[in-house]
């Protein structure tokens, strides 16, 4: 009986087929290319980790969160303050992750009662509040002047490689978390919440606890990423750490790859970073406007994302309709 059921289960689009080669290719970039490419690869890993994280709350659970930058910024400040207080760099990263997770648990308890647009606005307000707090609490955060961190020894090429592999590891762990979540009891409960929150409650899903767990999982690696990038750049300031642009960019990447798919956000981050960099290097003045137009087009023509279900079916349907219209 068991085998007959599992044989009729739909195969999930997990995307390991392309993820593993992509990860290997990324891992080789700093070994074969110069520091500029290593830096771009670091951005890809960083945004992939952030988009995978956002996917837990925005994709699996269906809560449109714009809190990404709040978690990244908190991780950056926590890491920087601890490192400046004498904590070893790696340990500071781990501690920053823990601080961010704790913050997300408390914050989630408060704002996950809101739904839809209200939740979205509430979550973006957190980013602004955190930025104001960071610029006002000068004794701890250095206020508007920001904080300097010790420069990583060994020269830029060496540092570039170290920080690339740090981000790479975070991305891999975030991907493993997504794969685990997809098969776990918690992940199943989150999909129930995403489909129908009242019905989820009624079948016995502890909805509030599940949503808070999802929010914490979505914050965890944002904290790590923030702390690593603070060490990498060796300087943080409130508008950089709590960046509204980042809080909008990350969900777009996840949607581009396919929200709710297991590894789609990685693909979304890769495509987004490559397109953004290409546009910036060719058309510095207009790059952001062009990016905006591309995003609008993608949302119109690829609402399910690159890995979303039914892309090919819809495209072939569109073609058939065009043919019928012209005939």
């Amino acid at each position: 009986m068991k085998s007959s059921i599992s044989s009729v289960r739909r195969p999930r689009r997990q995307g390991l087929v392309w993820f593993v080669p992509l990860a290997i290719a990324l891992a080789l970039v700093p070994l074969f290319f110069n520091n500029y490419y290593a830096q771009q690869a670091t951005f890809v890993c960083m945004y992939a980790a952030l988009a995978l994280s956002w996917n837990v709350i925005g994709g699996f659970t269906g809560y449109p969160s714009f809190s990404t930058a709040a978690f990244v910024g908190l991780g950056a400040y926590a890491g920087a303050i601890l490192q400046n207080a004498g904590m070893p760099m790696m340990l500071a990263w781990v501690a920053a992750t823990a601080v961010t997770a704790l913050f997300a648990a408390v914050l989630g308890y408060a704002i996950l009662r809101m739904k839809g647009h209200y939740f979205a606005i509430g979550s973006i307000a957190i980013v602004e509040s955190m930025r104001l707090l960071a610029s006002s609490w000068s004794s701890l955060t250095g206020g508007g002047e920001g904080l300097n961190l010790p420069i990583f020894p060994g020269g830029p090429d060496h540092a570039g490689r170290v920080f690339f592999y740090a981000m790479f590891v975070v991305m891999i762990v975030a991907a493993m978390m997504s794969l685990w979540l997809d098969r776990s009891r918690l992940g199943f409960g989150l999909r129930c919440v995403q489909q129908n929150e009242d019905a989820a409650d009624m079948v016995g899903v502890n909805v509030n606890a599940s949503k808070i767990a999802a929010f914490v999982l979505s914050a965890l690696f944002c904290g790590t990423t923030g702390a690593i990038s603070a060490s990498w750049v060796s300087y943080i300031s409130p508008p950089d750490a709590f960046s509204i642009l980042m809080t909008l960019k990350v969900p777009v990447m996840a949607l581009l790859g396919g929200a709710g798919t297991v590894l789609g956000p990685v693909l979304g981050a890769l495509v987004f970073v490559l397109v953004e960099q290409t546009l910036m290097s060719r058309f510095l003045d207009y790059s952001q406007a062009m990016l905006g137009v591309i995003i609008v087009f993608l949302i119109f023509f690829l609402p399910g994302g690159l890995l979303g279900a039914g892309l090919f079916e819809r495209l072939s349907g569109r073609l058939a309709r065009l043919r019928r219209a012209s005939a």
Partner: protein
Amino acid sequence: MSPLLRVEGVSRYFGGVAAVNKVSFELAPGEIVGLIGPNGAGKTTLVNLVTGVLRPSAGRVWFEGADVTAQRPWQASRRGLARTFQIVQPFPQMTVLENVAAGALFGGGAASRPEAEDVAMEFLEFVGLAPLAERSAMSLTLPSRKRLELAKSLAMRPKVLLLDEVNAGLNSAEIGAAIELIRQIAARGVTIMLIEHLMKVVFSLCDRLLVLHHGELIAQGDPRAVASDPAVVKAYLGSKYAAQEQQVGAGPVDAADPVDTPSGGGHD
């Protein structure tokens, strides 16, 4: 036998309106009890109070001897108090199998997803939906969705099952099948309370009836006795009709041939 579920003076106010007013009743293990009453009588509100969707303004709910008045819906379903909704509530983009597996995993305490899917398949076969297991829930017809809802609540392995108008919107052939299904569920040892407008269903299934009107329990007991109770007739058909019936001296329902009462009748 000690009651499985005991509701003690439960009230719920919305603003100044008492949707449910000091209602008390008990369910004994193995019973099938019908909850009837005109539209707006507070039947669904009462089910919501028992399953933790709403918190009572006053009164207590006891389940297996424990005070469960303050429970949340997910706690109710884990305890063995399951319900179906009048308006079906599937997880639309999941498969039929996943829908039922969710009930088995979270409410029914299955240890893992494969085990939950085995349990789900068993109940899909029971309600006759096994061939549609891999279809998405939103592709189902209304009768199938009602069956899905039943399979989902059964997969939670309930001790008490509250069925909120599972027959609404079904044709008479489908209702016959649904009655048979409810009978089979009861035969598995599940205590059932069903909200129902169709007297055919009530009379063929229920051991006992509760009648709710304006939030108050106006009658309870043997179905035939309740159906000829003047207070019940008045609630359904108005005081003028009840007075006429009193003079003629016969109940409105012929005991030999139970008919479908006007299901929308809520007039005084």
